[in-house]
């Protein structure tokens, strides 16, 4: 890369909560140790099911009143932002003025949890709307999670959320990069969050679509690429990155996790739910090209695969198209097999789970593959136990969502 430092954007902090870890270190260790975060779960109306729920302590950064009036998505965001800022060693108002920091958070959906809760609440009173909470509007405005962060942390720069279905975690990061390169902010807090298990509707809808995972052992339910996979495990979570220009990061001696060297986002324009591997492949190719790389230069591809019979096959078609037979050093893995589908947080969390590979060259596996679906065959697909790569210079992170939204990010080792 020959760009000047002020045109390069790097990750200098990570804050996350996943169903199997509340810090980057814990999350990574559990991915290497094969520890799932998926458990039995019960939700209103729908009944017993399985889900990935996070165990972080929201009171670490919020008052009890904030928890009462805010949203779960807001709490997850606040936790991740505080953890990311601490990791980066940045104090808002001291290391960056509060109006030069911004919050850009990807979401799959927002407001369903709060609306369902209110309808349930007024059902206790004969559905009289005078019992409807006055907090419903601030809880359900689309900027809620990012806005709650600004109120809690005291950030006066821009904030907004990015609605991008299950590509949102990557697109949140892309927005952070763009806002930095536009000169709107010096520090971007960007990534994705999900509170989706709080709504019974997402379980019921996937179930009606025959796309909700089920298994006697919850830890085995999320099984992308396995022949017996039967759907998605709904999970919550969040991952927020501190993004800065390289010159700024260098000037303050920051720890650098990696550089966002390429990204691409496009649309299928074909179907409400079925993915389009041609557009997925185009998205991957453009991200790689923008990074100044070829497919053979990518050493880890973190797949989006969710465990649906059709979706996994389509992505593998796209992957074989892009990476073919001439990428002997490219490894493929999947993080959803451990944590389920964290929706708006998925891509951001999944990228985080691979960051350490730049240093240790270990590729975490995709677990729960007892019998690989031949239609999901990929060279160097890392199954069930970690693999060691000769080198890890660049990671490609896939994310695809409903309505045919695709977003691919390339992160490169900073040397």
């Amino acid at each position, binding site marked *: 890369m020959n760009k000047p430092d002020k045109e390069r954007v790097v990750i200098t902090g990570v804050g996350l909560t996943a169903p199997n870890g509340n810090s980057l270190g814990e999350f990574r260790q559990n991915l290497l140790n094969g520890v799932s975060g998926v458990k039995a779960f019960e939700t209103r109306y729908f009944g017993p099911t399985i889900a990935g729920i996070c165990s972080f302590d929201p009171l670490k950064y919020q008052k009890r*009143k904030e928890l*009462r009036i805010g949203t779960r998505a807001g709490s997850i965001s606040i936790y991740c932002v505080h953890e990311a800022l601490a990791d980066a060693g940045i104090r808002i108002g001291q290391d960056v003025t509060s109006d030069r920091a911004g919050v850009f958070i990807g979401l799959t959906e927002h407001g369903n949890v709060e609306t369902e809760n209110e309808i349930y609440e007024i059902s206790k009173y004969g559905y009289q709307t005078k*019992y409807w*909470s006055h907090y419903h509007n601030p809880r359900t405005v689309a900027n809620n999670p990012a806005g709650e962060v600004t109120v809690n942390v005291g950030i006066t720069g821009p904030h907004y959320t990015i609605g991008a279905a299950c590509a949102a975690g990557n697109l949140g990061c892309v927005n952070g990069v763009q806002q930095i390169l536009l000169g709107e902010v010096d520090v971007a807090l960007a990534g994705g969050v999900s509170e989706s298990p709080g709504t019974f509707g997402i379980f019921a809808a996937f179930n009606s679509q025959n796309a909700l995972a089920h298994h006697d052992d919850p830890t085995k339910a999320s099984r992308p690429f396995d022949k017996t996979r039967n759907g998605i495990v709904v999970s919550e979570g969040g991952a927020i990155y501190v993004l800065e220009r390289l010159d700024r990061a260098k000037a303050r001696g920051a720890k650098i996790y990696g550089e966002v060297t390429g990204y691409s986002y496009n649309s299928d324009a074909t179907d409400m739910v079925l993915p389009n591997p041609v557009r997925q492949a185009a998205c991957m190719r453009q991200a790689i090209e923008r990074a100044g790389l070829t497919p053979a230069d990518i050493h880890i591809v973190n797949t989006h695969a969710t465990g649906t019979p059709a979706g996994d096959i389509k992505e593998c078609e796209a992957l074989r198209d892009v990476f073919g037979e001439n990428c002997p050093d490219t490894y493929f893995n999947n993080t959803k097999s451990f944590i389920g589908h964290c929706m708006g947080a998925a891509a951001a969390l999944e990228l985080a789970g691979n960051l350490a590979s730049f240093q240790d060259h270990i590729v975490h596996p995709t677990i729960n593959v007892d019998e690989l679906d031949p239609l999901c065959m990929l060279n160097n697909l890392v199954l069930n136990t970690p693999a060691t790569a000769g080198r890890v210079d660049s990671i490609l992170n896939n994310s695809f969502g409903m309505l045919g939204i695709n977003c691919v990010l390339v992160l490169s080792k900073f040397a």
Partner: protein
Amino acid sequence: MTREEISQAIIDILNDIVPDEDWSALTPEENLRGKLESMDFLDVIMELRKQYGVEVPEKDYGHFATLKGCADYLEPSLASK
């Protein structure tokens, strides 16, 4: 409800609405507005509606400035409950 029970009911509601505040030392004449934001105050009105079936019209909100004011206003409605 007795006047003491009404006051305790108000304090219980305040504890739920603003749980980070210490309401145990609240005096009858203390101005509640210093500890309650406008949305909190609407929560007090909502909880009275939900828990005791009391409707407080907006024109009467001024009675809720103190714990004593709350008890004075609610006593006729809640005495029989």
